[in-house]
């Protein structure tokens, strides 16, 4: 109420004063507004062209009969959606993607947190550790997958003889040859590749916690573990929320690593949802309409998952 009065007073005085004042003010206002639009236009154009238009196109595709080789034929309502939903592979893909997401998140986040604490604490090897942990992030995920494909290969990789010597597997077997082996091999790849990245994110959050709180707590006699539980974790909540959203979204959209390491095998046991979209488009059905329909479903699911996560984890306002 109080803040509105000056604005209202401005308007009254504007109306009261005729002539010179108003034109100058609105000209400047207009020029400022124009400058604002000029600065924003490139971003708007990019967002519209590269984000909104493709989404519109995919939604249109999902409702049309559009094959890979034959192109657009006609719209067909919800036929693509019903075909996608009646595919038995869809259930397998969704179940596997969820399982993989839970596994990766549960392993990756504590690992990143622990690494961040470790790097925080150690003084001498600080920079060496940080570099060593971060170097995998320099690799694109496809390159990392190829690297691990060679590592896991029974013909040329070094791991098979080692596992054989340890008695865990015999030299002729393939690590990627069983569903369990393939899943864990991929999880290892992802943890190796992303631990550094999430470690950095967590470290930023950790460093934002003021030292005085820890000092006050140790004066009060709190042990390290209690400090961790009662001070670090609650204050780290926004960071944890962010890393969790990133890992969950990234894992739900996992494609590159499975395409290169397992191609969805062995026997469709490591098939993720995005890999299924790729198959619909280019391999089995060669039907872009069906692929677009599944893409729309994945988009809706992702939005819901993220809204839910933000609500559940981003409740700092209420906490204070």
């Amino acid at each position: 109420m109080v803040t509105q009065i000056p604005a209202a007073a401005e308007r009254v005085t504007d109306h009261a004063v005729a002539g010179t004042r108003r034109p100058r003010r609105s000209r400047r206002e207009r020029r400022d507004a124009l400058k604002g639009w000029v600065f924003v236009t490139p971003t708007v154009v990019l967002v519209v062209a590269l984000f909104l238009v493709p989404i519109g196109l995919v939604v249109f595709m999902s409702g049309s009969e559009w094959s890979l080789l034959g192109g657009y034929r006609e719209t067909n309502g919800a036929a693509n959606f019903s075909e996608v939903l009646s595919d038995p592979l869809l259930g397998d893909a969704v179940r596997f993607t969820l399982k993989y997401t839970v596994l990766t998140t549960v392993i990756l986040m504590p690992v990143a947190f622990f690494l961040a604490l470790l790097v925080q604490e150690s003084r001498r090897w600080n920079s060496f550790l940080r570099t060593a942990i971060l170097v995998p992030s320099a690799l694109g995920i496809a390159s990392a997958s190829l690297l691990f494909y060679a590592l896991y290969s029974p013909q040329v990789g070094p791991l098979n003889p080692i596992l054989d010597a340890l008695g865990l597997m015999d030299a002729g077997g393939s690590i990627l040859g069983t569903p369990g082996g393939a899943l864990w091999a991929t999880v290892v790849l992802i943890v190796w590749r992303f631990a550094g990245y999430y470690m950095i994110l967590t470290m930023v959050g950790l460093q934002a916690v003021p030292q005085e709180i820890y000092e006050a707590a140790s004066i009060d006699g709190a042990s390290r573990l209690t400090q961790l539980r009662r001070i670090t974790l609650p204050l780290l909540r926004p960071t944890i929320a962010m890393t969790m959203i990133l890992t969950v979204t990234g894992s739900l959209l996992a494609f590159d690593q499975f395409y290169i390491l397992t191609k969805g095998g062995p026997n469709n046991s490591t098939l993720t949802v995005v890999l299924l979209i790729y198959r619909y488009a280019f391999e089995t059905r060669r039907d872009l309409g069906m692929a677009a329909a599944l893409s729309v479903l994945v988009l809706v699911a992702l939005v819901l998952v993220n809204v839910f996560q933000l609500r559940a984890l981003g409740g700092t306002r209420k906490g204070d």
Partner: protein
Amino acid sequence: MSKGKPMSTSTRFRSRAAVLFTGAILLSGLTACGSDDGQSAEPGDASGSVEAVDDGTVLTMWTRAPLERQATNAVEAYNAAHENQVELEILPNDDVEGMVGSAAQTDSLPDLLAGDVVRIPYWTEQGIFADITEQMDGLENLDDLQQGHIAAGTLDGRMHTLPFVTDISVMVWNKDLYQQAGLDPEAGPATLDEFVEHAKAVAALDQSGVAGSYLAGQSGGALVFKLLPSIWASGGEPLSADGTEAMMASDTAKAVYSAYRELAETPNGLGAGSREETGATWTAPFQEGKIGVMPYPYTAVTGMFEGNDFEVGVGPIPGLDGGGSTFLGGDAIGISRSSEHVAQAWHFLSWLMSDEAQQTVFADNDDTASNLTVLADGYAEADPRTHIANATIADGQAPVARNFNEAFNAAGSPWQLLIQDAVWGDESQIESHNEAINAILAQ
């Protein structure tokens, strides 16, 4: 504390404008493609000019990586003797359909397009190729050509494709390993039982890395290439004539599967990595001298005739009680519907079908010609193994089905799962996998 100013009229107007603006953009995306109706499904009509023109045009051509040697031979021979020049582009096997698909949508297909013969029926139906019935009717030796590849590209009586490279499957064996195992190196397996026997003998050598045979367990395409000839040679019919039904659970088929199962259960019977082989490296173990006997593509055998570490024996793929058959695979070639140089492209194709070209490009290089006359007479100086391979063509077949790729070749296809269960897994599942194949073929 501060609840914030209520929205002034100008702010409300601005947010409403933003929403309308976004909506308009989204709709413009829809209408932009809605009005794009240029993609008709009918095959392009290349009629009008039946002549072949050689006027120095540059033609583009795409072919698959496995057949690079044969394709390069053909293109080089053509370019050396004519004014038209063909630019060859080799595509990785797995990328072919994606690239053809995107090129089809943007009307940027190459003038000449060669593709795996099992995919040709689908491509023809989707209108990738130009209709060249008139040109082909004008060919003198049309009846002399290998009909399998022509039939694959025939739709409603209109023809679109000619044979390009004929890749047949043969049984090969490592003569050195045979000698070591006490087998006659000049005599390959004449029946399926002998095949199992020979493989077991090599397996019993117990040499490091050496196995009796090799199966590309997760490559549907390689599996049909290797196993269907045994079914044909035994008098079985794996697919119905119109390609809508599969009989992969017949007694004949099951007998073939159990032969391989027996090897899988023998130590060193099937090479390490057979079960997981996706097809990327399925010809490598034999080339390295690690496999005793296995079905193999003939296009990969001719390169091993000279300068190889071991002698290679070649024979027809036998059935249960003898006989021999082969998978008439390889690539068929056609002119794409968006080509602007149909007459010049036809010049290349008509040259390729001539006896002279078939002789110099294929027969003289020990490759399989697509011309029956040349097959009969043109191999006088060829390696005797080539004669054996050519003789199997008469009994060979090529399966034709619109949805062949999804049912058989694609990663994770029901055919792949069927073999995985038949050879290494649960045999009782063979029937249900066959049903899954039928469901796809009948679409």
